[in-house]
C-alpha cells in the first residue's frame, strides 16, 4: 500500500470519527437545545408538532423567572449552600484522603470500603434521619443543616478521588520535607497540598456540581428561607404547559453560573482528570 493511500485511508477514518462524534454531541445536547428553544417560545409554539423552527423569540419567561419569581434569592441560597459545602468538604476530604494515602494499605482499605458503602445508600434513606436530626436541633430551613448533609453525602466521593491523587505523590517528598525541617502539618501544607491542587480542583468542581444540583435533600431540609434553585424550578413545572417555558427559562438560569465556573476552570479540570494517566 502506498503512502498516499495510507494517508487517504487515515483521513477518511478521521472524517468518520468526526461525524460520529458530532452526532453523539448533538444527541447529548438535544435536551439543552430543546430547553433553550422552549425558553424562548410561547407555550403554544413550544408544543406544536412538528416543532416550529422559525418563531418569534421572546425573553418574557427569562424576565419572569429572574425578576418576578424570587429567582435571585434562590440562586443566592444555592450559591451559599454550594460554596459552604465545597469549603467544608474539600479541606476535610483532603485531610482524610491524605491520611489514608499515608497509612499502611491494610489499614486504609477497610476505611475506604466503608466510605464506599455509605455512597451506596439510597439518598432517601439518609434524608429522613437528617430531617429528624434537623428537627431535633431546630435547624430545619437553615443553611447549616443542608450544608452538613451535603458534605456528609459528598465526602466518600471526595475522599476516594483525593486519595488517588495523594497516592500518586511520592512518599519520598513527605520524608524529604520532614528531614528539611517540616512538621507533618507543614509537610502537608507546604509540599503536598500544592502538588495536589489539580486533584483538589476536580474534587471541588464535582462537589460544587453535586451540591448545586442536589434536589432531594434540598426539598426535605429547606423551607421558604433557604429554598434552592432545583427545588424552586420543580415548583414551576406541573401539568400546566404554560409553565413549561418558565421551567425551561429557569433551567437555563440554573445552568449559566455552573457553565461559567466550568469554562473558567476548564484547564484545571482537564489536567486534574488526566493527572497520572501518563507517567512522567
Amino acid at each position, binding site marked *: 500500500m502506498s503512502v498516499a493511500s495510507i494517508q487517504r485511508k487515515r483521513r477518511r477514518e478521521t472524517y468518520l470519527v468526526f461525524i460520529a462524534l458530532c452526532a453523539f454531541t448533538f444527541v447529548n445536547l438535544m435536551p439543552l437545545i430543546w430547553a433553550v428553544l422552549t425558553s424562548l417560545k410561547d407555550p403554544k409554539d413550544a408544543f406544536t408538532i412538528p416543532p416550529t423552527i422559525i418563531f418569534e423569540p421572546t425573553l418574557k419567561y427569562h424576565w419572569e423567572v429572574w425578576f418576578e419569581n424570587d429567582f435571585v434569592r434562590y440562586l443566592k441560597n444555592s450559591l451559599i449552600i454550594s460554596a459552604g459545602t465545597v469549603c467544608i468538604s474539600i479541606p476535610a476530604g483532603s485531610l482524610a484522603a491524605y491520611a489514608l494515602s499515608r497509612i499502611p494499605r491494610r489499614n486504609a482499605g477497610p476505611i475506604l470500603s466503608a466510605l464506599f458503602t455509605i455512597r451506596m445508600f439510597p439518598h432517601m434513606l439518609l434524608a429522613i434521619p437528617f430531617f429528624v436530626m434537623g428537627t431535633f436541633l431546630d435547624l430545619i430551613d437553615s443553611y447549616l443543616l443542608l450544608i452538613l448533609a451535603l458534605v456528609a453525602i459528598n465526602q466518600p466521593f471526595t475522599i476516594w478521588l483525593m486519595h488517588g491523587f495523594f497516592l500518586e505523590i511520592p512518599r519520598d517528598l513527605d520524608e524529604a520535607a520532614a*528531614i528539611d525541617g*517540616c512538621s507533618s502539618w507543614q509537610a502537608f501544607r507546604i509540599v503536598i497540598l500544592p502538588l495536589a491542587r489539580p486533584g483538589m480542583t476536580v474534587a471541588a468542581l464535582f462537589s460544587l456540581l453535586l451540591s448545586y444540583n442536589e434536589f432531594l435533600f434540598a426539598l426535605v431540609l429547606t423551607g421558604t428561607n433557604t429554598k434552592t434553585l432545583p427545588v424552586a424550578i420543580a415548583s414551576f413545572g406541573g401539568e400546566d404547559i404554560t409553565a413549561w417555558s418558565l421551567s425551561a427559562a429557569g433551567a437555563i438560569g440554573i445552568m449559566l453560573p455552573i457553565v461559567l465556573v466550568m469554562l473558567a476552570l476548564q484547564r484545571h479540570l482537564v489536567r486534574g482528570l488526566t493527572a497520572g494517566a501518563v507517567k512522567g
Partner: protein
Amino acid sequence: MASLTIQHATKSFGGLEVLHGVDIQIADGEFVVLVGPSGCGKSTLLRLIAGLEDITQGEILIGDREVSHLHPKDRDIAMVFQSYALYPHMTVEENMGFSLRMRDVNLSERKDKVRASAEILGLTNLLGRYPRQLSGGQRQRVAMGRAIVRDPKVFLFDEPLSNLDAKLRVQMRSEIRELHKKLGTTIVYVTHDQIEAMTMADTIVVMRDGYVEQIGSPLDLYDRPANIFVGSFIGSPAMNMLEGRIGGDRQSFVSNRGTQIAFGAPVSPEADRKVILGIRPEDIGVSETGTPAMVRQVEPTGADLHVNLDLDGDGFTALFHERLPLEEGQNMGLKVLADQAHFFDPDSGKRIE
C-alpha cells in the same frame, strides 16, 4: 560534623525482625558505605538514622546526643534520596533553600548560602529552573545541594546513583568523593553496588539479612574477607569458591571432585582439614605445570580478559590483564600462590587465619 554511634539497633515490622542488634561506630568526618544485597536491611538502617522509621530497640547517637526517638527535623541530618525527592513546584533555588526557610533563616542569608552551595556543585546557572527542566545528573546535584546548604552534622545517601547511566554514575561518584573532601562531613551512604562501595568509602559495612557481616576499609575487606559471604560479595568478578580439604603437606588443596591445586608454600589451615578455598579471579596465574583446566569461554573487555574455566566440572573464573591467546576448548595450567588463597570453614563460613 559529628560522630555517629549505632548501638544494638533492632527494627521489627510487626512480628518480623529485619535488623538484629546492629552496632556501628562512625568517626567524625568518616565516609561509611553500607553495602549488601537487596533486603539486607541497609536502607532500613539508614532510615533509622534519619528518623524516618522508629527504632524498635537500641540507641542512635549523633555526637554525644541521643536522637533515637527524635523527629527527623530535630536530628540535624540531611539526606539524598534515590528518587532525589525534589519538590516539583519549587525552583532549584527554592528547593535548595527550603530547609533554611523552615529554620527561619532570613532571606539574604538564605540566598547567600544557596549561591555558595550552587557554586560548589556548578548549579549557579540552573537556580531559576524547575526540577522537570533538569537532566538526571543535574537533579542529582540539586539533591546534594539541598543537603549541603544547611551544613548538617551527618549526610545520608540512599542509593543516590542508581537512577543514573553508567558514565554519569562514575562521574558523580568522584564528585561525591570530592565533595566529602571539601566539606569533611560525616557521610553514611547506602548502595548495593560493591564497586561504588570500594571506590568511595573510608569504611565499608557489609550487611546481610539484618546482620553486619564485616566492617573495615575497602582493601581490608578485599584482602581479608571475614567470611564466605563477604569474600564472594566484594570483588568483581566474584571470588571462586571450591570445597575440599588441605593436602597432607599443607602446600596443596584437593577439591571434592578431585582437582588438585598446589600453592608452592605451606598455607595456614592444618593438614587434611576440610575447607572452602576462595581464589580471586585476578589472583590466578598461568603455569604449564599447574592445575589443568579447560577454557569454556573467553570474554575480552578490552582492558582485561575474563576466562570461564572448567576444573573437573567445577566452574572457575580467571581474570588476566594480558591478552593471552586463549581459545574455547583449549587446555591450560593454572597456578595460585599460597598468600593469595583464602580459606573458610565449611560449617561456620568464617575465615580461617
